[in-house]
């Protein structure tokens, strides 16, 4: 445990006036301790809103308060003082940022109170972040998966936070300046910033937003649940609630996160979540390979639907049926709203062989342009004399393909294949096919265990004079192997 606080708050005992904030060389001060501290940490920006309360004794008249934050990453423009008790008898006359002492300020508090009051100091700091990650363990038959979600808070702010209530904000906020940049300049420079007013406006708006949720979250989340007799203490609950465009995770009770440390806590757990396996060929997304995908949904059936899933890394394992695990993949997922699906790419499956074979090609519908005249003549039209002095202007390229799939797994597999065919193209097949977009077709198949499927299709690409469109049309037709 660290023996010194980087933050100090002192009541300076010198006789002060607003213009002469403190004695030059001889000081006497008292140092009130923190009573509570709350961290609201954003994962989309390097930003944490810190609220701390302290009990301070005031005397009637002027009471100077010194607040300093050496070697931390606090935005000086964000530091605010509020009186939680006796607010009607206490007021801040002015705030001074001394030129000679960076990372320090004085509040000149006018008091009608002779006694103790609770104050709240709030500020933004950089250097504290959080991230999410998920550990998923699928059953051996890959029908269900257990999912554990975690949040990991990392404290590189330079300050220990002991017994802090921790709240994590899921969502993307807008900042006009980085807190870490603001923390590195002097208070004088902060005051000179053209947009400092905007920064304060931003801070006020954030505080108001957070205040709205505090009343709800603190009541339920601060009290730790009593562990039933004879059972192990349960991991802390993480309360989740929506707030406008954001979601707030409030970790039960308090946490101590020392400077330089990080701490990981379980945020969600779901057992037997249904999972679906699909094999996909989408070159634009996964490259020129058939990949095995795990499809999951953040919905009621999955028991995950209480919260959106924050951005994070998913690590997927499978029980290997031999009292151990098989590592399948680790990959990042983006924010998953409630009800939305998320997908994991497991890469190529060596037990599913996927080949595209071009069986034959031909050209027809040949049109010639008579040189020197704007006349087109089709080559194979009966009775038409073709000029010697002419050039090929239009034709159709025909190609027949066999999409060969061999399934050596023990289960039937679902395939979904997308092919982008630029230009004016006709796609002919008996496969279940549809347009994914104007130049991409998508066809599907189910291949049984041990089956060798031969999925046939033909493309007719209209070229030159024959190309009248830039799209793919689908025709149902039997294709000879």
């Amino acid at each position, binding site marked *: 445990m660290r023996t010194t606080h980087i933050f100090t708050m002192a009541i300076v005992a010198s006789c002060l006036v607003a213009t002469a904030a403190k004695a030059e060389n001889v000081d006497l001060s008292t140092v009130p301790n923190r009573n509570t501290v709350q961290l609201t940490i954003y994962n989309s920006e390097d930003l944490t809103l810190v609220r701390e309360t302290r009990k301070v004794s005031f005397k009637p008249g002027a009471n100077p308060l010194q607040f300093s934050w050496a070697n931390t990453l606090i935005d000086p423009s964000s530091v605010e003082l509020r009186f939680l008790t006796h607010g009607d008898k206490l007021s801040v006359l002015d705030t001074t940022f001394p030129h000679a002492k960076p990372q320090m300020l004085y509040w000149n508090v006018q008091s009608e109170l002779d006694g103790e009051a609770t104050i709240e100091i709030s500020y933004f700091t950089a250097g504290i972040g959080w991230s999410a990650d998920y550990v998923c363990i699928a059953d051996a038959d890959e029908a269900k998966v257990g999912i554990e979600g975690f949040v990991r808070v990392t404290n590189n702010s330079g300050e220990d936070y002991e017994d802090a209530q921790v709240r994590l904000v899921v969502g993307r906020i807008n900042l006009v300046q980085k807190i870490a940049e603001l923390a590195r300049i002097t208070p004088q420079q902060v005051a000179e910033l053209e947009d400092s007013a905007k920064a304060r406006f931003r801070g006020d708006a954030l505080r108001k937003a957070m205040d709205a949720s505090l009343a709800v979250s603190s009541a339920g989340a601060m009290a730790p649940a009593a562990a039933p007799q004879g059972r*192990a203490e349960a991991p802390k609950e993480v309360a989740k609630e929506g707030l406008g465009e954001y979601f707030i995770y409030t970790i039960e009770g308090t946490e101590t996160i020392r400077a330089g440390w990080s701490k990981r806590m379980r945020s969600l757990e779901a057992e037997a979540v249904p999972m679906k396996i699909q094999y996909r060929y989408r070159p634009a997304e996964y490259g020129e390979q058939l990949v095995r995908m795990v499809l999951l949904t953040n919905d009621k059936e999955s028991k995950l639907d209480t919260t959106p899933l924050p951005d994070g*890394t998913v690590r997927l394992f499978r029980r290997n049926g031999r009292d*151990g695990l098989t590592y*399948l993949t680790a990959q990042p997922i983006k924010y998953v709203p409630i009800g939305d699906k998320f997908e994991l790419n497991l890469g190529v499956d*060596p037990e599913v*062989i996927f080949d595209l074979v071009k069986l034959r090609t031909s050209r027809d519908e*040949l049109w010639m342009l008579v040189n020197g005249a704007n006349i087109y003549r089709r080559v194979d039209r009966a009775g038409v004399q073709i*000029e010697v002095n002419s050039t090929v202007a239009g034709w159709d*390229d025909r190609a027949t393909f066999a999409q060969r799939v*061999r399934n050596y797994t023990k289960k039937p597999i679902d395939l979904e294949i997308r092919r982008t065919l630029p230009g004016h193209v006709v796609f002919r097949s008996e496969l279940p096919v549809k347009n994914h977009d104007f130049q991409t077709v998508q066809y599907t198949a189910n291949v049984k265990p041990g089956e060798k499927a031969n999925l046939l299709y033909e493309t007719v690409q209209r070229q030159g004079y024959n190309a009248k469109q830039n799209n793919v049309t689908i025709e149902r037709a039997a294709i000879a192997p």
Partner: protein
Amino acid sequence: MRFHRSLLCLAVAAASVVPATAFARIKLITLPVRERVEIQLDNPNATLVEEERIVPLVRGVNQVDFSWANTQIDPGTIVFRVVGGAAKADAKAEAKATDPLDVKVLSVSYPPNEASLVWQVSSNGSGGARVRISYLLGNMNKSFNYRATASNDEKTLVLSEYMRIQNLANESFGSSGLWAGFGPRFLKPIGINETKEMLVEKFAEVPVKKTYTCDPQAHGYLDRPQNKLMVPMHYVLTNNKANRLGAAPLQYGKVRIFQEDGHGGTAFIGEDWGKFTPLDDEMRLYVGVAQDIVVRRTIDKNEVHRIAGNLYNREVVVKYEIENFKDKAAVLDVSENVRAIRNEVAGDTGRDVQWELDKATTFDGGPDKEKSTFEQLLYHVSLPARGADGKADKIVHKLHLLIKNEW
């Protein structure tokens, strides 16, 4: 297991502590040893280590430290699971079997600038909990290699598949389960910087097909001025049960090929990289050049027939003069790429070739339907052994192509 050499360390604080005091400087720790290690090598890109330890816990919150100095463990992949087998030490003896410890992980803390982490684990009683710690470990590499011994008549071979594990992970593992995702599970120790090779599968009496191939695009010429094509000899193995393989896909690796010399010994006849071979696919192993089969390739005919304007058909005849100077009959695979022929005689138009076989083609039976495509043709030609007088018959074949609708 020599724990004192282990760089991976698990330590449990023996006193019931709370998180706020978990990091005190003075503490008493126990060091649970590994009870079981499984090294899963089934992922092509990662090695998963699972180790089981019996962790002594006291009632309340316990601190379990895990550190991995100088090893490449991905801390994000570390998973801590209680796998049962734990029983309350303070329970009555008869209750032990039905009264396991209720153990839960409360949180994980990561100290700064250290390869370590600290689990806060709660337990409803005192006793040993069997836990499994899984993590991805870097620098534990695996590769495969093969030794093939062909019979003297080259009709069958014995194929041995070996897995080689190189432990550069800076951590020794005592007797550990090793599994490649197929084949048997091995139980072996593997020390720091050790390399261990194990026989995964041994396939006996595997039919081997010996092929001679001429393909000007793939293999080129042995003597270009003389128009003599290169004729490589391959051993071809088919990875299925009918050919006494087919247990699993054959992994990529070097194949060293030996042949029984008929005198109780073997001779090394070549080596090749065996590609990853799925079930039912062929592994083709290039053994060497067959200089006793001579193939001369010439283009006998190249004629253009105009259809209209700049549109024409082209007639091409490729002639092959083949001689087998071997004492044995052989089958030669003649492979041609029609697009390459068009490019050879007329230049590349960038378009696929529309072609038909014309009447002067002499190959019997037509192209191999399985292995030929819209532009690649494969023919099989039977070659008799040379005669008793040492002379070889010259066999002439022609490939007559009508290349259509070119401009």
